[in-house]
C-alpha cells in the first residue's frame, strides 16, 4: 500500500502587536494575521493592532523569515464610512501584504476591481458554510481561500473540499465562538457598539464586575448580568454567549449557549491534514506575546510530528485553554449541534 500524499498545511497564527508577530514568526508560524488600529477588523480592541509603520516593519521581519502576513479587513463598513476600509486595503497592498481577509461584499468588490492580482481570503465573518455560498464568493470575487466556521464535522469539511475551487482554512485552537460569525448583533443590542460595524464583541469599556458583601462576584455587560461567581470560583469574562441564564422550565441557571471552553483540535490533527485542509488557524489576536509563543511552538511541533508520521506531542496545549477546559466542538460530532 502506498502512503497517501500529504500536503503540509500552513500554520496561521494571530498577532495583536508587532511583538506578538515576531514571537509567532520565531515560533514557526507559516503565516501570521493582523489588523489595523481601527474598526476595519473584528478585534478592534484598545492597545491592539498595527499602525501603517508597524505593519511595514512587521512585514519586512516576517518576509525575511519566510513567513507570510495576512491582513484581516473583515468587518462590515456602514454606509458613509467605507473610505476607512478602502484605505486599509490600499495601505496593505502598498506594503506588499500576502493576502487580505475580507467579509463584506463591498470591500471585496473594491479590492478585486482595484487590485485584481491581490490574493483575497474569505473571512469566517462572511458566513459561508455551504458549497454554494463558497462557490458564490469564489466566482464573484476570485477568493483563493475560505476560512470555515467552527460548525462543521470533518466529513463535512472533506465533502466541501472536493467541491469548491479554493483552499480551506480551519480553526484549530482558541476561542470557541458559538454564534454564526458576521451575523451577531448581541453586543450592539446590549452596549450600542456593533460587532460587524465596530469590530468589537463584549467590549471591555462596557464590562462591570460587582462584588457583594459575601464576596460573590457579578459580571455584567452594559446593564445585563452575564454570570455570577462565588469567591472560590474563577470569574470568566462576560461574553454574552458564554453566560449563564434562567429559563422557566429549569431550576438553576445554565449555560444557555455554551460553556466557557476552548477549541482544541490537537487530537484531530491527523484527520484534518488527511482531509486536505490547506491551513490551520489559531484564534487569539487579543492574547499576550507569551501565550502566542507557547501556543505556536506547541502546534509547530505537533504538525511536524504528524507530517513525519509520529504521534503528536500535545499535552502542553490543555494548560493554555480557557479555564483548562477544551472541546472538539462540532468537528468531532454533529451531536454538538
Amino acid at each position, binding site marked *: 500500500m502506498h502512503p497517501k500524499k500529504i500536503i503540509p498545511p500552513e500554520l496561521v497564527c494571530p498577532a495583536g502587536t508587532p511583538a506578538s508577530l515576531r514571537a509567532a514568526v520565531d515560533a514557526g508560524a507559516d503565516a501570521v494575521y493582523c489588523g489595523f488600529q481601527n474598526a476595519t477588523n473584528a478585534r478592534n480592541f484598545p492597545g491592539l493592532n498595527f499602525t501603517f509603520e508597524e505593519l511595514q516593519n512587521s512585514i519586512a521581519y516576517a518576509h525575511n523569515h519566510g513567513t507570510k502576513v495576512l491582513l484581516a479587513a473583515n468587518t462590515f463598513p456602514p*454606509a458613509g464610512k467605507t473610505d476607512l476600509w478602502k484605505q486599509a486595503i490600499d495601505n496593505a497592498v502598498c506594503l506588499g501584504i500576502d493576502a487580505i481577509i475580507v467579509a463584506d461584499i*463591498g470591500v471585496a468588490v473594491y479590492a478585486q476591481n482595484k487590485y485584481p492580482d491581490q490574493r483575497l481570503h474569505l473571512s469566517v465573518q462572511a458566513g459561508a458554510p455551504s458549497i454554494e455560498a463558497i462557490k458564490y464568493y469564489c466566482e464573484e470575487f476570485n477568493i483563493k481561500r475560505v476560512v470555515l466556521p467552527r*460548525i462543521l464535522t470533518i466529513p*463535512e469539511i472533506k465533502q466541501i473540499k472536493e467541491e469548491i475551487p479554493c483552499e480551506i482554512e480551519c480553526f484549530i485552537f482558541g476561542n470557541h465562538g458559538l454564534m*454564526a460569525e458576521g451575523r451577531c448583533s448581541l453586543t450592539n443590542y*446590549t452596549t450600542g457598539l456593533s460587532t460587524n460595524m465596530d469590530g468589537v464583541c463584549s467590549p471591555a469599556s462596557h464590562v462591570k464586575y460587582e462584588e457583594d458583601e459575601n464576596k460573590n462576584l457579578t459580571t455584567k455587560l452594559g446593564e*445585563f448580568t452575564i454570570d455570577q461567581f462565588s469567591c472560590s470560583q474563577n470569574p470568566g469574562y462576560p461574553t454574552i454567549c458564554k453566560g449563564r441564564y*434562567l*429559563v422557566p422550565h429549569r431550576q438553576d441557571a445554565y449555560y444557555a449557549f455554551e460553556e466557557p471552553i476552548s477549541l482544541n483540535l490537537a487530537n484531530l490533527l491527523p484527520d484534518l491534514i488527511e482531509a486536505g485542509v490547506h491551513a490551520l488557524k489559531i484564534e487569539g489576536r487579543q492574547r499576550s506575546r507569551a501565550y502566542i509563543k507557547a501556543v505556536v511552538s506547541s502546534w509547530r511541533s505537533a504538525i511536524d510530528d504528524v507530517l513525519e508520521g509520529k504521534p503528536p506531542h500535545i499535552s502542553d496545549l490543555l494548560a493554555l485553554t480557557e479555564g483548562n477546559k477544551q472541546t472538539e466542538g*462540532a468537528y468531532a460530532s454533529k451531536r454538538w449541534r
Partner: protein
Amino acid sequence: MTAELTLGPILFHWPADKKRDFYFQIADESPVDTVYIGEVICSKRSPFFESYYEEIAERLQKSGKKVVFSSLAEVMIPRERKMTEGLCSVETCNIEIEANDSAALYHLRGMPHRIGSFLNVYNEDTMEFLVSKGAKHFTLPPELPSSVLKILAQKARALDVTIEVQVYGRVGLALSARCYHARSHNRVKDNCQFVCEQDPDGMTLNTINGTPFLSINGIQTLSYHCLSLLNELDDMKKMGIQAFRISPHNHDMVKTSSLYRDVLDKTISPKEALVKLKKTGLQIPFSNGFYHGTDGYRWIKSA
C-alpha cells in the same frame, strides 16, 4: 408614493393549522400589501407546512396581496442546500424569492430577486453589487442606525430599487448551528422533538437576577424587547424608505398591522397608536435603540 406595509415570515414554530388560519385571516382582514412566507429559521420545521403553501399563496394573492417566498437564513447541511436550490428554481409566476443566505444568492444571480434582512447589506457598494446581480428590493439588517438607513435609501433611489425596514416585533440578533431550544431541554438538534413549538413567541432567557434579556427561537436568538418604530415612520418615509415590515407574533396581527397602516396614512398619531398597540401587543416593553444609534434594547422617547 404610498408607503407599503409588509408582513415578514413567521419566525416561530407554530402548528401548521394555526399558520394556515393565520394567513387566511391576514388575507381577509389585514391591510398589509405584501406577505413573506416560508420557513427561514429551521429546515427541520419545513415539511410540516409544505403542503399548505400553494393554498395560502393563492388565497393571499386573491385578496390583492403580493406574496414573496423567503429563503432559509442558514444553509449548511444537504437538506438545507436542497431546500434552497429547489426554492430558487421555482418557476411560479407572481412569486418572488427573498434571499437570506449567500447560498441563495448563488442560485439567484441574474434573476430578479429580493434581499432579506439576514444578509449583510451595510453599505452602498454592497447594495450596488447585489443590484448588478438582479436584486430589486432590500430588507435591511435591524441593527442599522437611521444615519446609515438614510444613505442607503438615497443609494437605492439612484439604483432604482426599493428598501424595507422592520418596524414591529422581536428583533433577530444572532444565528447558530446549535439549537438552543433543544439544549435547554437537554436535547440536541437532531433529537429536538420540536420543543420550540411550546414557545410561539420565543422562549425568554432571563439573567441570573431575573431580568428578561433575550429570547430563543431554535437556532435563532432574538431580542426580549419588542421593536416598535411607530414614532419613526414619518422620518423613514421622508428618507425615501418605501416598505415597513411587521414581524408576526402570537397576538392580534390584524389589529397591529392596522395601527401601523393608520399611522402611515396619518389617520392617527404615533402616540395614540402606541397606547393602542400596548393593549393588543405582547406584554413586553418596546425598544427602538438600534434606529437611534444606541443599545438596541433601549426605548428612546420621541422629541
